[in-house]
């Protein structure tokens, strides 16, 4: 098998689609107007922004006036969490989240904890699932927000979002969900799933980087955390990134239209990949076997360390990621892998491989072929060191 380039890190980011770039180009060149201007240049940009707003709203069962464009998923998460906290702190100062959230949510929650809010971090089972009965028990009269991710970025586990939404709605508590990994892969409908606030990011579904959305259900009380103008109904002031917004609109339209066929193919490849990885031996799957993102594979390769695996795979042209401490920028392995109960040494050997809409079986076969000798070599260096 000849050497090839295999990108299996679509959970980190995806390439910009040609059709999306084509839609964006006019707004990076001739149609440069500021949507707030009243002249023809401005009006043209305004029309484009509002068209994209409609495209995003249609994709998740929302109304256009519920869509706020942001700089990305992290900003949207912060706006939702800090915005609700500011708006409702007189009613209560308790927020519920889960132990496996993205740092955009966890760090925002921790900053509120320092300001005197009390936080409940719901545990997850060995698959990464939040238990609905734990959520029901955790809601108190002073609870103002539940923020639980739609699908986990590391291990791919998909939560019972509709179940969580139903509980929150019946108890009169806002439900925010970080849906950054879900768009284009899972059915997202803010009405059916009783979602009050939702974050997404365009570059996860073949759109541009630097643009995201916060969905805010009409009537949800939110205070802005950025100030400076009337844009996005004052929730996110600042001149709009028109080309990015246009790109996001086109990208989400395509992602939702193609979701059924693309995810069916990815699911099949994912399961084929997992089976191949388990055949190596001393390999365990992280996350839920079925209730997971169609594109997500996460395994622990025992007696091998994540960064060493990644470096070797990279030399063979395969791009992946890991939850090992060495790649997380801290001295601790991923909080998600620890929360599902993995021992440190097993967490350090984690490998995340996220497929894309264009990943082919040959890419998987190539990856499995190059990975086997890498694992054997690293295990030889580990020797008898790790005793489990």
């Amino acid at each position, binding site marked *: 098998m000849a050497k090839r380039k295999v990108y299996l890190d679509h959970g980190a980011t995806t390439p910009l689609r040609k059709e999306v770039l084509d839609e964006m180009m006019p707004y990076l060149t001739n149609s440069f107007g500021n949507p707030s201007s009243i002249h023809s240049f401005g009006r043209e940009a305004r029309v484009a922004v509002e068209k994209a707003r409609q495209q995003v709203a249609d994709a998740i069962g929302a109304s256009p006036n519920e869509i706020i464009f942001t700089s990305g998923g992290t900003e949207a998460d912060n706006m939702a969490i800090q915005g609700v906290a500011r708006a409702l702190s007189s009613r209560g100062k308790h927020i519920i989240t889960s132990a496996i959230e993205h740092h955009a949510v966890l760090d925002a929650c921790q900053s509120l904890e320092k300001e005197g809010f009390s936080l409940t971090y719901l545990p997850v089972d060995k698959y990464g699932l939040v238990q609905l009965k734990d959520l029901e028990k955790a809601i108190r009269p002073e609870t103002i927000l539940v923020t639980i991710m739609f699908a986990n970025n590391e291990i791919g586990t998909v939560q019972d979002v509709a179940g969580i939404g139903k509980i929150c709605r019946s108890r009169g508590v806002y439900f925010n969900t970080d849906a950054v990994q879900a768009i284009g892969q899972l059915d997202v409908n803010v009405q059916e799933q009783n979602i009050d606030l939702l974050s997404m990011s365009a570059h996860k579904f073949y759109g541009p980087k630097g643009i995201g959305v916060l969905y805010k259900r009409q009537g949800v009380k939110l205070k802005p955390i950025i100030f400076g103008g009337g844009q996005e109904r004052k929730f996110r002031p600042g001149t709009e990134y028109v080309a990015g917004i246009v790109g996001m609109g086109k990208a989400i339209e395509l992602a939702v239209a193609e979701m059924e066929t693309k995810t069916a193919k990815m699911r099949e490849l994912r399961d084929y990949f997992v089976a191949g990885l388990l055949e190596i031996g001393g390999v365990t799957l992280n996350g839920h076997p079925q209730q997971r993102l169609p594109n997500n594979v996460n395994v622990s390769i025992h007696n091998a*360390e994540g*960064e*060493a695996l990644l470096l070797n795979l990279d030399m063979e042209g395969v791009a992946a990621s890991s939850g090992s*401490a*060495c790649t997380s*920028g801290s001295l*601790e392995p991923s909080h998600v892998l620890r929360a599902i109960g993995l021992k*440190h040494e097993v967490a350090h050997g984690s490998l995340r491989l996220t497929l894309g809409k264009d990943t082919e079986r040959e890419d998987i076969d190539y990856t499995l072929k190059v990975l086997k000798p890498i694992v054997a070599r690293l295990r030889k260096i580990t*020797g*008898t060191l790790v005793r489990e």
Partner: protein
Amino acid sequence: MYNEKVMDHFQNPRNVGEIQDADGVGEIGNARCGDIMKIFIKVKEGRIEDIKFFTFGCGAAIASSSALTEMVKGKSLEEALSVTNEDVARELGGLPSVKMHCSNLAADALHKAIEDYKSRCRN
């Protein structure tokens, strides 16, 4: 992120393995931070006649273990004891700063192996 010399030691580590009848063994690190090293030495007439290692860890951990074994093989115990983790990093042409404390522990493991050898001699 790693220079060529580090990558060479990572890809082609020298002296990997175990010495069955080692005169001294030293282990350092913990699973928490993800780097564990074990050094085996064979000592003859006050010199390190043979040295081997096992390492569970990242690229820097494997490379620094490998480089250390090359640096001290054939050296007297006194010379070997004077080698520090910083010397190993220097020999490798530098390591990323985040790796200096968690992954660059080979010299400490060696010092433990030499202590082990000395305590065996005393008993």
